[in-house]
């Protein structure tokens, strides 16, 4: 039976092939092989598949970001760079009008690295549009950028920051909407030729034109406004669902994710693709842009003459969805589901996604015009929210931490070596090899090594599966990994990063053994979360080449890298470490060596406070709920389990010994006893919660509760939700400010980025320093004094905080 079927099938296929090839050169056989494939059998299967897909339409919403709140959501660096600000330039500098045959070309080329959307640009665009309409010899227009890297990178952020009132924000949105409405209403077709990024306002402009051509693999489209606490205010919330579908529009607008050109084509966002060209008579990007223009001009002319009609056939799924959305029940279902998802992700702390839902809904309910009105109102309201300010601040900070403030290293590290193939070591190796760096991965034995290789392999396979890279690229990345159990090859290493067990004696042994084999210029970096680098470097023959690189687990997901310099670390060593971190795709902060550096140190007093809160009768679930409601992406009890209670114990003991009573809080015996009972957190299967292997259920660990009960404390009248939340945050923030005061931190910016990207400090605040600016140092000092009266020295505000409170100065003075 089986054989019969397959034989029949191959027969059908080969028969077709022969017929096709007999058609001679009508078309290349290869092409036909592809096109003719869905014949008979396959076509049937195809239709069945489509049917199944349409049934699944309702669950399409599952694509919503599951991590809107997580710092990692704050996207690949690229997305951020693109919001970059430019200086306002003089008139007629942004849009140049040319003519080619019957097609006008509007060439966007603002001075500076990127094109952004602001008042002068819009004015010049309006002017050019008028000229197009007025010239009877022009039948169509092409909108193209002269910068291969971006079409329009989005709205001008400095313009957004200047908005002081709801009305100002609305006016901004309205002006953009009107301009784009006018463009859309033009009888002469406008074609967007997109190479590079078309984000936010850039995509909104493109969506208002009549046809979009994009360069495959070299264009990214998206509406990332939500990441800045805003919504697409230039008609984007209305045109996006119209071009794609409501679920797709919700997905893009709520997560702010970028889509590549070919995906955009599938979504209906782009009408035609142009292939990127390789090196030819000019450099590839220049020629590709020219080619894009040639195609776009031809397309525009054909659109005007009617020779080409946009084909915007929706897929079966979208058709079913569009039909269903005409009725209240499915419509409510979709939007309620989306809202529930947003609430789950954000705890309602972020106004932007909720507003986006309302605005898109307004368009679906009341039509395009009503939708635009809602959009304009929503934009104005969001533009003045503190969340918007916090997120924009975070964006600036991230941009800052994507630069190397130590300059270019003398020797670019190409070959890394990682010592220890554990979770961290393999993670560091993974983010190195998949950025094209060669990386030796050394472990003590083959068993540990194999585990590490598997981890790297799994990470790369996942990327292949998500189509982020091709399987071929995956193979090449894996070839960059050089596993070993000896020091072979270390004589050619430029940088060694050790990720061995957190024990000073072992670190010393490893450092000395490594220094025997590495070349003169090689840097030795230690990945430790708490051991002072100065102590590690004490046995080094060349302490100027020793530095700390504190990665966060899981390395391939967490964006932060905390680099720690000692007094002896040379500037060039720091430059090279930052350079490697940036190439690994990290956001990098550089801090001075000290107990717990920055991130570990500010976490410790808060963890101590956590224990006190638990001793005072809150259950781990209460603690998680309270902290998540405050904006922490992971609840504090869960965080303790993730970090590992044993690690927390060591750290608090070490730091407690140095900093004394200021780091006190709950009884240290609580954690000690839990660790002794084997409750070390997720890794041991038991911590505050239980982690049974085969389910996702996380029941509370009754054993842990017993211990907490044993050490229970009477609440001291500061246990309202708000007080507990503030107690935790206050100790965290105070310690951060102290780090700045002591010079551990070089700037508040790095403090903010470190706290948000490394520890999950509520992102919408913009970080602990922006948080202080926002609520006022005076307020914080007042609250802390109230707590200190009960709990003592742990809540003593540091001097810098007191100074700020007294003078009213801000960490980020207004420009």
């Amino acid at each position, binding site marked *: 039976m089986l054989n019969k079927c397959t034989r029949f099938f191959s027969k059908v296929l080969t028969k077709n092939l022969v017929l096709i090839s007999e058609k001679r050169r009508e078309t290349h056989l290869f092409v036909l092989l592809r096109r003719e494939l869905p014949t008979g059998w396959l076509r049937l299967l195809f239709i069945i598949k489509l049917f199944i897909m349409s049934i699944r339409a309702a669950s399409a919403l599952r694509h919503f970001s599951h991590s809107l709140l997580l710092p990692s959501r704050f996207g690949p660096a690229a997305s951020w760079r693109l919001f970059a600000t430019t200086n306002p330039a003089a008139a007629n500098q942004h849009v140049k009008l040319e003519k080619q045959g019957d097609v006008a070309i509007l060439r966007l080329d603002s001075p500076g690295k990127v094109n952004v959307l602001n008042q002068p640009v819009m004015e010049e665009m309006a002017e050019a549009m008028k000229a197009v309409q007025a010239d009877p010899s022009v039948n169509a227009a092409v909108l193209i950028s002269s910068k291969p890297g971006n079409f329009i990178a989005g709205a001008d952020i400095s313009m957004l920051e200047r908005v002081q009132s709801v009305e100002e924000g609305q006016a901004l949105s309205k002006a953009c909407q009107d301009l784009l409405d006018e463009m859309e209403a033009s009888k002469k077709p406008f074609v967007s030729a997109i190479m590079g990024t078309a984000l936010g306002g850039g995509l909104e402009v493109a969506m208002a034109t009549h046809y979009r051509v994009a360069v495959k693999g070299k264009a990214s489209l998206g509406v990332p406004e939500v990441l800045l606490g805003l919504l697409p205010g230039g008609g984007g919330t209305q045109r996006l669902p119209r071009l794609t579908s409501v679920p797709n529009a919700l997905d893009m607008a709520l997560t702010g994710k970028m889509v590549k050109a070919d995906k955009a084509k599938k979504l209906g966002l782009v009408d035609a693709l142009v292939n*990127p060209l390789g090196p030819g008579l000019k450099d590839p990007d220049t020629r590709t842009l020219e080619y894009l223009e040639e195609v776009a001009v031809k397309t525009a002319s054909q659109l005007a003459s009617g020779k080409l009609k946009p084909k915007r056939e929706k897929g079966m799924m979208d058709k079913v969805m569009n039909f269903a959305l005409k009725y209240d029940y499915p419509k409510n279902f979709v939007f309620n589901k989306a809202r529930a998802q947003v609430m789950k992700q954000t705890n309602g702390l972020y106004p932007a996604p909720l507003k986006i839902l309302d605005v898109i809904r307004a368009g679906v309910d009341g039509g395009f015009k009503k939708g635009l009105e809602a959009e304009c109102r929503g934009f104005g309201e969001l533009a003045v929210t503190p969340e918007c300010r916090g997120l924009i601040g975070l964006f600036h900070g991230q941009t800052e931490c994507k630069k190397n403030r130590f300059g270019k290293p003398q020797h670019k590290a190409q070959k890394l070596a990682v010592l220890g193939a554990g979770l961290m070591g393999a993670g560091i190796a993974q983010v190195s090899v998949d950025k094209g760096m060669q990386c030796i991965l050394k472990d003590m034995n083959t068993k540990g090594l194999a585990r590490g290789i598997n981890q790297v392999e799994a990470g790369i396979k996942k990327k292949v599966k998500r189509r982020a890279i091709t399987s071929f690229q995956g193979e090449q990345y894996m070839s960059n990994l050089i596993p070993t159990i000896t020091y072979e090859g270390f004589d050619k290493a430029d940088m060694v990063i050790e990720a061995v067990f957190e024990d000073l004696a072992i670190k010393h042994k490893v450092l000395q053994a490594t220094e025997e084999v590495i070349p003169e210029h090689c840097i030795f970096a230690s990945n430790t979360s708490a051991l002072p680098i100065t102590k590690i470097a004490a046995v080094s023959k060349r302490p100027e080449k020793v530095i700390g690189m504190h990665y966060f687990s899981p390395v391939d997901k967490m964006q932060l890298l905390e680099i720690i310099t000692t007094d002896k670390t040379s500037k060039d060593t720091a430059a090279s470490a930052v350079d490697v971190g940036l190439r690994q795709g990290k956001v990098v902060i550089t801090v001075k060596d000290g107990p717990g550096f920055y991130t570990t140190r500010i976490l410790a007093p808060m963890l101590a406070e956590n224990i006190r809160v638990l001793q005072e009768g809150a259950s781990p679930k209460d603690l998680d709920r309270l902290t998540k409601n405050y904006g922490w992406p992971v609840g504090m009890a869960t965080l303790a389990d993730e970090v590992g209670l044993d690690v927390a114990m060591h750290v608090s003991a070490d730091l407690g010994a140095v900093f004394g009573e200021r780091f006190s809080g709950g009884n240290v015996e609580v954690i000690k006893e839990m660790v002794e009972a084997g409750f070390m957190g997720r890794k041991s299967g038991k911590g505050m919660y239980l982690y049974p292997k085969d389910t996702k259920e996380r029941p509370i660990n009754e054993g842990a509760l017993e211990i907490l009960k044993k050490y229970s404390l009477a609440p001291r009248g500061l246990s309202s939700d708000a007080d507990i939340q503030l107690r935790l945050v206050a100790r965290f923030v105070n310690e951060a400010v102290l780090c700045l005061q002591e010079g551990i931190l070089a700037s508040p910016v790095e403090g903010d980025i470190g706290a948000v990207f490394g520890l999950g400090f509520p992102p919408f605040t913009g970080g602990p320093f922006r948080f202080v600016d926002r609520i006022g140092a005076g307020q914080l000092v007042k609250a802390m004094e109230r707590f200190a009266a009960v709990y003592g020295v742990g809540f003593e505000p540091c001097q810098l905080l007191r100074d700020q409170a007294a003078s009213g100065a801000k960490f980020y003075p207004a420009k």
Partner: protein
Amino acid sequence: MAALQIKPAQLKKLFTYGGVRTMAAAAQGKKNIVLVEGVRTPFLMSGTDYNKMMPHDLARESLLGLVRKVGCEPSDIDYVTIGTVIQEVKTSNIAREAMLGAGFSDRTPAHTVTMACISSNAAIATSVGLIQAGVYDTCVAGGVEFMSDIPIRHSRQMRALMLRANRAKTMGQRLGLLASIRPSFFTPELPGIAEFSTGEVMGHSADRLAAAFCVSKAEQDEFATRSHRCAMDARDKGFLCDVVPVKVPGKEVLVEQDNGIRITPPEKMAAMKPAFIKPHGSVTAANSSFLTDGASACLITTEEKAKQMGWKPKAYLREMTFVSQDPKDQLLLGPTYATPRVLEKAGLKPKDIDVWEFHEAFAGQILANFKAMDSDYFAKSQMGRSAKVGAPPMEKFNNWGGSLSIGHPFGATGVRLAMHAAHRLIQEDGKLALIAACAAGGQGVGMIVERYPGAKL
């Protein structure tokens, strides 16, 4: 010892012929290797007259044609190497099957090589290497491609299931396997038409290449037409004397000539839709080479051996080089890279070359190569050279047509290029020819062929 006393000036004079320096291999301590003769079957569009044959049948025809034309005994052949691309799985060492079928000695070893469109160049290189190394004296190098039938596989899941079925002992096991079949298992797997490394189909890459070098569709159509016109002229004048007729089993008449040569009216050519990049691409079916069935073979030996056997060589095989570059954006630029390198190896300048023979994969590819060879920017930025090498003069280029018109059986084209070069040198009274070709994987070949004194068509 006497040879050692010759001064360089004398040496130069000794090897100067018709104003150009010849490249006596002896001067470099190498053997003089000659191309005695070469033949090919008519190249037919796949799915036509050869339809029912098998690939090794075609290869066998070319081997038989070769020994008959040279007038040698199969036992004179020491070794056979044949190039092929899409392998018939039943005859995976097709060289061996074909030579056995052709009645060669079963004591003669044979092996198959593959290097995409330059597979038979690789076969030639292998033969030259074996001879140069002193392993053998007389080798046959050939190539074959048969696109009328290609191995289409079951899906991986289905294959796994079938292999498991072999081991299923009980009815229960067999039924269990049967029950695990899913519709998706029936999707067949076609042989790799796209580059494995980049996932891009060659025609697609050619279209991008043409665009990168600003080659218009009109230029491509014009070049394709020239190829067909040249091929038609050459055929009508009887120049294509490397073709040996094939009697296809069951057919009434002999297949005597290529069937892909035809002049398409310009307006029809211009109206052709792009085949790969729609709707704005420039590569069409009419300006691309088509899928072809065919085989070729040539006899390679030392000058000494040829004299001893009384064979009349056509040409010397002089320098050769293989090149490779980025398989994505420079997939088809083999000739651009190979030409300057092989010229340098031979100590020649482009003007020394009388006959240029390039493999024409796509008209756009050839023209892009011309522009690349003529671009200082490209030479400097991509090839690390100080200056361009210059494009070949059109009047010396593929004067008897090329792969666009004659056809392109992937594995067999290399020998056809060598024979066209050798025969054109005789016909056009030239001295030196340069062969170049591109191949999948971003590879390429360049060879210098020198006319053998007194060679006749």
